[in-house]
């Protein structure tokens, strides 16, 4: 079996475990390439269906075409979408673009807390997230089924063992489990799979007339495009084979302080 099929089969297995084990399951969909591949894998696992709602945490600062693309796929693929927003913070103008908060504090309110609110509101006990081990160091330490406590905190020092695809599916009331079916994929694998399956991704990933493309998508004020001539999936793969810069180098919040991202993740960020 080729390695993409291996990755695919493993992810399908994990998605099906999650669907079987969690009565109240949701999948986070950031509109980016990873969670869109994840969405595609869900359709593989459930024979064209997506039998749980998708949650999009909308900071309202997303690049506008992301929302258009989101709404188009929701229509075409008949998806159930829940949009989570931290209305209170937005009303109070407590954001980085308003100049009131640091980037990380803004992420914490508009993404992490918004996520927490939406999980609590719907009582989700299983949340599928498209993070990958090779994205950044804290994610490298993750488990496929990763418990979060009542405050959504991640205890990285004491994680459950994971043996032979027997996952942690027993959890105390009030806690929840993050499920990471893409953990073992790399950035290149994602693009190779997009190419193989012909998955529609948002055009922001491809180089524009100015010779710029987004390698990782986030909020407009904190996400910068990279210099690139890659206009097709194949060209992106070629580019990635030869690059030595990191995927999230265009994400400003990661750089704000040395352990910014780690702190966010411990507190419940995706």
């Amino acid at each position, binding site marked *: *079996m*080729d*390695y993409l*099929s*291996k990755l*695919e*089969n*493993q992810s*399908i*297995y994990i998605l*099906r*475990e999650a*669907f*079987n084990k969690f009565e109240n399951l949701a999948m986070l969909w950031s509109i980016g390439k990873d969670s869109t591949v994840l969405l595609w894998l869900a*359709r*593989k*696992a*459930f*024979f*064209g*269906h997506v039998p749980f709602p998708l949650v999009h945490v909308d900071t309202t600062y997303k690049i506008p075409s992301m929302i258009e693309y989101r709404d188009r796929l929701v229509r075409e693929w008949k998806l159930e979408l829940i949009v989570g927003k931290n209305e209170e913070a937005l009303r109070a103008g407590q954001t980085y673009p308003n100049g009131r908060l640091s980037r990380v504090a803004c992420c914490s309110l508009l993404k992490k807390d918004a996520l927490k609110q939406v999980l609590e509101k719907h009582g989700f006990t299983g949340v599928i997230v498209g993070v990958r*081990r*090779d994205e*950044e*160091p*804290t994610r*490298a*330490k993750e*488990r496929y089924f990763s418990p979060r406590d009542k405050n959504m905190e991640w205890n*990285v*020092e*004491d*994680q*459950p*063992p*994971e*043996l*032979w695809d*027997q996952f*942690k599916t*027993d*959890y*105390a009331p009030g806690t929840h489990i993050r499920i990471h079916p893409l953990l*073992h994929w*790399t950035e290149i694998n994602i693009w190779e799979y997009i190419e193989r*399956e012909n998955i529609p991704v948002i055009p922001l990933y491809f180089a524009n007339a100015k010779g710029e493309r987004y390698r990782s998508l986030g909020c407009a004020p904190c996400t910068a495009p990279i210099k690139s001539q890659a206009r097709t999936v194949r060209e992106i793969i070629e580019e990635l*084979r*030869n*690059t*030595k*810069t*990191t995927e*999230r*180098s265009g994400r400003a919040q*990661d*750089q704000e302080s*040395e*352990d910014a*991202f*780690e702190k966010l993740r411990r507190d419940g960020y995706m």
Partner: protein
Amino acid sequence: MKTLETKEFTERPAVQQATEQLKIVIVGHVDHGKSTFVGRLFYDTGSLPEGKLEQLQRAAERRGAPFEWANLMDALQSERDQNITIDTAQIWFKTAKRQYVIIDAPGHKEFLKNMITGAASAEAALLLIDAHEGVQENSRRHGYLLHLLGIRQMAVLVNKMDLEGYSERRFRQIEAEYSAWLKEVGVEAKLFIPISARNGDNIAGRSTNMPWWNGPTVVEALDQFVVGAPLLNLPLRFPIQDVYRFDERRILAGRVESGQLKVGSRLLFLPSNKSSSVKTIERWNAPSQDVARAGESIGITLTEQIFVERGAVACLESEPPLELTWFKARVFWMGREPLRKERPYKLKLVTQETDCWVEKIERVLDASTLASVERTDGEQYVGRHEVAEITLRTRKPIVFDVHQDVAPMGRFVLVDGFEVSGGGIVAPAAYPRRTSDSSLKSSHLYWSSGKVTREHRARRNGHPGCVIWLTGLSGSGKSTIATELERELFNLGKQTYVLDGDNIRHGLCSDLAFSPRDRRENIRRVGEVAKLFADAGLIVITAFISPYRADRELARSMLPKGQFVEVYVKAPLEVCEKRDTKGLYARARANELKEFTGISAPYEPPESPELVLPTDQLTVEECVNLIIEHLHLRDHETIVSI
């Protein structure tokens, strides 16, 4: 950086397309150089992001501390005491041959649990031993655990050779000592390589410091490992992960753990002991193929609808697995609380789950010495990080293989409360093979029989117990027929009782809604109750929509052959809707009722019911008479006339 200046870094040829991936785990005693080795391996294979090394070197310089390769992997704050940012830790690297995945980055406090987590999914392992310190406790423990976990490809890296003056004698000494240990464990010592991770000796490039070494470098050794275990040539094992009803089809989803299945394959499902054939192999957005091989997550549909649920294991009749309520195992324990005999645990083996308990602890081992652990307190338990040989007893029959025969079916975890606390493999023993008569197995295994038998009751009542299962749309006439049939049977002197859908939902099943999952549970409970009533000698009449074929098959499978009479109460939807005795159709049409059978939820008509009653053509009396006739027919043939 002294080490870098003296070491020439050779650029590796650009990798074309990595066609395969090998998962490796790196283990060894603490401070024997795992993190340093990984850092160096990344650098020497050209797998580091641009500028990363320089960034770390500058950071080290600012702190006035020497640069350490290990910093590269020490990404989490809790593991580092210095003030540098590391924003990447790719845990994969490439050689000219293929891509490698390091499953768990080393350096964690809870290392044994992580080591086991990593090793359990690895295809190969690298074990580091410090040339200066020599073989230590965890060198031995890790070697033993790798073997226990089923890792058969391993290279032992004797590290820090620079501290021992690159002495061949020291290398051979460690090689001899550790080979002897591995032999005791039962592993054939394969490959030992002398290295210095810090200086890059024998990692990707050949060391000039050890001209006596003719063996491979680490990268060469890695490239010799084989990807993928030969699971394809083993007997077919297809554990059912879930059953889906999508697009009017009933799909059994799962991963082929070993062997292969084909369209047309006759499958035996254990522990239910039912057979059916593969009608289709289901995949989405993939080329259609008539075969599914080990490792593929697929779905299948069957030619005959039989009851199958998660946990069932499909195999070929010619090569079945074992099916028992006990087995012998070797376990390693990671729980905070020791593994004890008197405590119940949850056993998870492929997709099966059952309560279990430790029947016997044969031996507790110290994995670093293989010595038996003697308890001074005279108590028997398996402590944290200990290994033991035990016998497990399960509440339900469990389908398994001995680990060395079919590895995926011979390994399991034990859950204590909410925590996965132990793992183990099924050890060889004198297991009785499956017999063809399994009627006493599975669901009947713990059936306790009193002195009054089914036959005694049948003789006194003048008829045996049985279940008349009325199925059909809401408004088709089930309840009307049921109450009239009950009255008639009662008047005929028969023992009878009606289980009515609405009544059951008021009490026994008041916690259930109308989702497919809840409907299935509703029918399962009704089936169990009907089975008990029939066992008590009654003619049980059930009146439930019971829209799913598989759920009715489940009920049928609970009863002895011939004592389940499926009656299809058949009326066209329009007729039922017109009758609408309870006003439900109107509400369903108005969207007030969700998942209403016939309107917004499917009804699967029986394929071969014992009786069909078209209630738009027959009167109630005619229907009741047909059923009673059917019962009389059976009475003459069977036990009633004793």
